[in-house]
């Protein structure tokens, strides 16, 4: 796939909950190999949008296409085999399994022999500096380590789109910076596109190629990170005084 063609396209996506419109005709797209930042105040519809893409919610209107196919027909567990992987806001690891098994489980959707899968898992574990903890159960490992385990697990399915749900939550500035560098270098290496839902403006502006801002279920801004800081609508709804 050539760069800059859009892989994920949202077209007039809408959803209501009990008469309240949570998303109202949201349209944007994520291009191959690009990191798209999604920002907005709490309740703006970011999580709802995320849940529509991860097939937990069904939009009441609009279309979401993935590489030209209708994503809304895909069942949640089939997302991974379609090439879409995700990480979780509050970490969602398999606590009773080792780091190695967690990583292997990420490959549930991938066809391939056991040998091949194990080699891939070990390669990712090495890449994410998890070798020392590979045979430890996920429960009980430090937070920062678990974030890397989640990344390893997500990458196991060879995703073309990685959905990152507030990855900076609970990290200090220096850790956020490391995480940002890691995401960018993994992107360069594996070539996936990423949709980044995040409040940490340093991370969003630092690594995104493209930023979309939501407020009250509407898209209020779309553009480059450089433009977002000065956009009056975003400042009024989200950033407040210059961030």
């Amino acid at each position: 796939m050539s760069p800059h063609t859009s892989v994920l396209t949202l077209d007039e996506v809408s959803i209501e909950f009990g008469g309240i419109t949570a998303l109202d005709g949201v349209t944007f797209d994520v291009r191959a190999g690009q990191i798209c930042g999604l920002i907005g105040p709490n309740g703006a519809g970011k999580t709802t949008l995320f849940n529509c893409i991860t097939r937990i919610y069904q939009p009441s209107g609009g279309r979401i296409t993935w590489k030209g196919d209708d994503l809304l027909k895909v069942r949640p567990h089939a997302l991974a085999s379609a090439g879409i992987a995700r990480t979780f806001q509050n970490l969602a690891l398999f606590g009773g399994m080792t780091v190695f098994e967690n990583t292997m489980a990420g490959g549930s959707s991938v066809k391939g022999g056991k040998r091949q899968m194990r080699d891939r898992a070990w390669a990712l574990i090495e890449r994410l500096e998890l070798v020392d903890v590979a045979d430890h159960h996920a429960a009980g490992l430090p937070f920062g380590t678990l974030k890397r385990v989640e990344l390893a697990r997500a990458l196991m399915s060879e995703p073309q789109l990685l959905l990152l749900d507030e990855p900076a939550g609970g990290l200090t500035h220096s850790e956020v910076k490391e995480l940002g560098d890691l995401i960018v270098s993994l992107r360069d290496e594996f070539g996936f596109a990423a949709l980044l839902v995040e409040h940490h403006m340093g991370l969003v502006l630092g690594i995104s190629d493209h930023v979309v801002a939501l407020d009250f279920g509407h898209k209020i801004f779309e553009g480059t990170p450089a433009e977002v800081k000065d956009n009056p609508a975003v400042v009024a709804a989200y950033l407040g005084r210059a961030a």
Partner: protein
Amino acid sequence: MELFLERLISGLTNGSIYALLALALVVVFRGTGTLNFAQGELALFTTFVAWWLTTQSIPVWIAIVAALVLGFVMGALIERTLIRPVQRRNDMAVLIVALGLFTGLNSLAGLLWGSETKIMPSPFPNGLDDYVSIGGARLYFDALGVWGALIVLMFLMTLLFKKTKIGLHMRAVADNPESATLAGVRTSRVLAIGWGLSGAIGALAGVLVTPLAPQQLGLTTMFSIFIAASAAALFGGLDSLVGAIVGGLVIGVLEAMLTGYISIIGGSLQQTSALIIIVAILFVRPNGLFGTQKLVRV
């Protein structure tokens, strides 16, 4: 018509018992988020104690009060010593402890009092002539007593949860024990009270149901009632008081009608039919009919 009315009355009476035990289940579920599999056997044990007291020529009313108090104490003690320490670990641990209590209490009753069935005296007049006639059907006073007990309890529970501080605290602890603790709620006391309360309610169900038929107090008595009560509690999603009561009455009546009119079910498939109801309810509404939908956030 007469037969129908009598079946309705008997269904409502059994249903009231199911509703009582279902209430006990709901109180525990709301407090600890677990289904107390031992609820029926706890009730059985306390009922055996009440029966034993009556054999020691203690008046039945005093025996019943003693059973309620014992139910409260045992419930609170079980919560404090057996449930709370494993609560934090996981749900499976709590379930297993409850299973242990289930077998343990039942066998203990058998060990202490033998497996032959007993006759529990009724607190209400229950001679052959103690009834009023409604449309030709007989409504016995002890059935009326059961209905009365359910109504009074329902009223008291509503008052407790809606109007009192301890009720508010119970709801808070059920929702999020840590937050409640941080607000200064004495969580451990609240939890123990909740379990105690359910132990007492279960005891009430036991002492009311066993005198309804002769030779009804045996080691297996409470199990079928527990099954029906679980179905009733599920009817309301395990966390709704109203749901438990409605569920209990519906299942009681349904059972009386089904076993009365459909011969294949007869007496012997009673539990199976209650359980089919459980599965059916769960299949249609995984959180019960009155249950609150819990939002899973990740």
